């Protein structure tokens, strides 16, 4: 671990380190002594935002030592590889960038943020998560939403967006909206803009969905962060069906999609608290899909209706 980097995720700047420098580039992390690159095509950098060397746009905090969270660098310890390498996966920059999702998610949890396995889409200013285990058809549903209603849906993040919990109902766990720190003390490393974030401040914006570097094989991204409007839990079945779940039906499926390294029971408890907040804050639908695009049309009619003139 020779080189320290910083990465901006959901309004916070985290220190991190990598075995493979290519993993840093894949995640848009920058050596801590460097400034982030200017906007592609030149021009002045807008205050508080920059476009990274790839085409991923990630919100940044102030680029100074004070803005970096005072935590140990997020890093994949060598002894951890064996827990994450499955099938024919090998140690590489690509697998490191992928596995680090869990460690970044755990580092974000004290700040009421986490990484979730979902496609995050944006519709009429609100974010919607389509969540399911791999291979169920999240990306397919998102593609059909865009195809059936051209121009209405954008993608915030194609694989693992970051949730920020700003609920005023949970002030002890969500000072993120006030200062970006954990409940016990203010944190000078938090983003100075997070509590003034217009996205966070609008509506009863309890949960904000942020883009992340993990955009899936399609590399879907581009839409900015938005307050969460709801969740669609996707499963395959014998027929197309849509059901609005009660919170106690939605809690466990939500838990299973929040990413963590599954090491520490305190993290398990925090994940459960975030899953509860998610299930109790926004509507959660279960979409059983047998055939597309019929299941997508069902979703459009009930969850994303077009107002009739």
């Amino acid at each position: 671990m020779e080189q320290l980097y910083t990465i901006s995720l959901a309004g916070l700047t985290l220190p991190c380190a990598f075995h493979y420098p290519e993993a840093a580039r894949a995640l848009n992390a920058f050596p801590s002594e460097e400034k982030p690159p200017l906007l592609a095509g030149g021009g002045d950098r807008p205050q508080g935002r920059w476009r990274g060397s790839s085409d991923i746009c990630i919100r940044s905090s102030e680029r100074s030592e004070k803005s970096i969270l005072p935590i140990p660098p997020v890093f994949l310890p060598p002894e951890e590889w064996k827990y994450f390498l499955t099938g024919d996966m090998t140690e590489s920059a690509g697998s490191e960038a992928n596995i680090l999702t869990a460690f970044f998610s755990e580092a974000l949890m004290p700040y009421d943020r986490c990484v979730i396995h979902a496609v995050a889409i944006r519709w009429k200013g609100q974010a919607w998560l389509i969540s399911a285990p791999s291979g169920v058809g999240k990306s397919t549903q998102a593609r059909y939403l865009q195809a059936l209603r051209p121009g209405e849906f954008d993608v915030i993040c194609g694989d693992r967006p970051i949730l920020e919990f700003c609920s005023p109902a949970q002030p002890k766990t969500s000072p993120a909206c006030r200062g970006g720190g954990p409940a016990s003390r203010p944190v000078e490393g938090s983003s100075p803009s997070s509590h003034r974030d217009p996205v966070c401040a609008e509506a009863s914006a309890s949960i904000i969905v942020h883009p992340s570097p993990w955009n899936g094989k399609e590399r879907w991204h581009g839409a900015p962060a938005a307050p969460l409007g709801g969740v669609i839990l996707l499963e395959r079945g014998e027929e197309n069906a849509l059901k609005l779940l009660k919170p106690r039906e939605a809690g466990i499926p939500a838990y299973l999609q929040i990413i963590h390294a599954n090491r520490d029971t305190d993290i398990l408890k925090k994940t459960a608290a975030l899953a509860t907040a998610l299930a109790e804050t926004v509507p959660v639908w279960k979409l059983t899909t047998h055939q597309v695009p019929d299941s997508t049309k069902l979703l459009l009619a009930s969850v994303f209706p077009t107002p009739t003139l």
Partner: protein
Amino acid sequence: MTYQARPGVALVSICKEPVLIPNREAYAYCKRIQKLPLIWALVWDAISMGKSMDHVVRVNQILSKKPEAEVREKIESVCQKLCEMGYLIAVEDDEVKE
């Protein structure tokens, strides 16, 4: 027979439902996530805090107002099932004494 909570298992509440969740070491022995009836959760919680079977029975007897023998049988049954599911470890009384 004495029981111990399996290390690495956490009892959490998700939307007011008690749930047992193992970490990756404990996951080798039990399901990834298990919703529990409330009485099972109370029993597991007490055992995880090191309470004796007698204590667990006594508390449940007070709450349920049922005869001790009936409560003990019920608690023992719950412990056996939690043991089969991997969330509790059965320890022979001889081992405990050692």
